[in-house]
């Protein structure tokens, strides 16, 4: 079956020359977009149009376009990664939109994620949190044997669910408090659940929470918006685990 064609779409896009400039919304029109087009391909079509008109193309983050790298972002029509659940922007397709629609496209709005240009924000804050403790220390040498450390299946599964986090930033971007708790919770949880990560669990929870607070993210109020917008549907049950890990670590001090 051939895809339908959306004859005209109006795009209201945030344009900002660089980090220091004041940005503004600009309105563009694109025509004859197939519903099978992905959202980012639609932006590519717009950019070709802009290049032909000698205008600066819209800058946006993208990489794998398979929904696994966590590079794409965008706040589309008031929601992180657009109106679909459990997908990244690159996996959002134009069949989700009506012909003649006006689509508002904004960058992540979060003090800790400053806008660099147009729709691109600087997500180094998440890297800094990871550097503070989102790792396990291992001795160098030969590769350890597989299954040398027995891990219960349910623990392995839960750790994998948390490890699905791609660090896209949708949680902090969508949170009414700009809190990064779901991200930090996923990273703390995936390691705290496994024997290899338990050794440094206390230090990790304290260091990552301290870094998160220092970077100016807000305080979690358990609204659950993050898990709804998370493209990997990471549960806020991991936030409860982070709270437990943090409390345990602080009580030991």
């Amino acid at each position, binding site marked *: 079956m051939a895809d339908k064609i959306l004859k005209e779409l109006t795009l*209201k896009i*945030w344009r900002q020359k660089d980090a220091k400039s004041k940005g503004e*919304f600009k309105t563009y029109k694109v025509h004859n977009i197939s519903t099978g087009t992905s959202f980012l391909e639609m932006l590519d079509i717009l950019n070709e149009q802009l290049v032909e008109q000698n205008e600066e193309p819209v800058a946006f983050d993208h990489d794998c376009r398979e929904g696994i790298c966590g590079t794409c972002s965008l*706040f589309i*029509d*008031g*929601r992180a990664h657009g*109106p679909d659940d459990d997908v990244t922007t690159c996996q959002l397709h134009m069949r989700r939109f009506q012909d003649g629609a006006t689509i*508002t496209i*904004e960058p992540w*709005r*979060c*003090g*800790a994620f400053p*806008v660099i240009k147009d729709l691109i924000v600087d997500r180094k804050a998440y890297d800094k949190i990871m550097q503070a403790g989102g790792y396990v220390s291992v001795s160098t040498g030969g590769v350890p044997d597989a299954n040398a450390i027995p891990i219960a299946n349910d623990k392995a599964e839960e750790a994998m669910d948390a490890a699905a986090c791609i660090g896209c930033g949708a949680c902090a971007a*969508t949170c*009414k*408090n*700009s*809190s990064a*708790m779901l991200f930090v919770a996923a990273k703390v949880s995936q390691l705290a659940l496994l024997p290899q990560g338990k050794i440094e669990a206390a230090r990790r929870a304290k260091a990552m*929470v*301290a870094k*998160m*607070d220092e970077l*100016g*993210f*807000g*305080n*979690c*109020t*358990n*609204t*659950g*918006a993050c898990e*709804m*917008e998370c493209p990997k549907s990471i*549960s*806020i*049950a991991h*936030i*409860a*685990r*982070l*709270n*437990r*890990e*943090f*409390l345990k670590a*602080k*009580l030991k*001090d």
Partner: protein
Amino acid sequence: MSNFWTSSIGKKVVMSLSGLFLITFLCVHLALNLLLIFDNSGELFNQGAHFMATNPLIKVVEPVLAIGFIIHIIWASVLTLQNQKARPVKYNKRNQSQNATWASRNMFIIGGLVLIFLAIHLYNFWWNIKFPSLSFVEMGSVQVNGVEMENTYAMVAGLFKESIVYCVIYIIGAIFLGLHLTHGFWSAFQSIGFSNDLWRKRLEWVAYLFAFIFAVGFSIIPLYFIAGLGN
């Protein structure tokens, strides 16, 4: 415990524990208040109120309760201010109804409305009981089983029978309190780490049950007097 109380999670733990403490107070408060509608001679309620006013343990808990309220309000204000600052540039278009409940997104505002109600409520009753010499209503006394005590029943019944406006204010107050608890109750457990995918469903269910009991329980009292069932 270095830096615990200044960390984001530490501050949330303060909100959680003070909130849970206030919920235990609400349980006692509602249980006593319902005596109003189970005995329209007023004797049961008067005895309950007299017990609360004279019990030494309650005298100790009362200032603790006040501190609990103050901490809950101050911490909420600090957290809300920080959260506002965490997003200096706001979104032009937001569709928050798609991902979180209205109550969970507006806890500070609902809490503020409950606080306004609390001020009215304290002015109506607590002030008159604590400072009879400065009170705005003459409170009579009554003999119950040979003990002389304040006729608190008459004061409550008088307010609700005289003024439909106060009845409406009290019902609205109860509804806001219920809304606050729909999110507050389960959120308190989440903040101290007592939750997972299974317990979250249970806690949310209990939260709605608690919210319903408090909203309806406190609303019944003015409704009971409007209906003319009181003495």
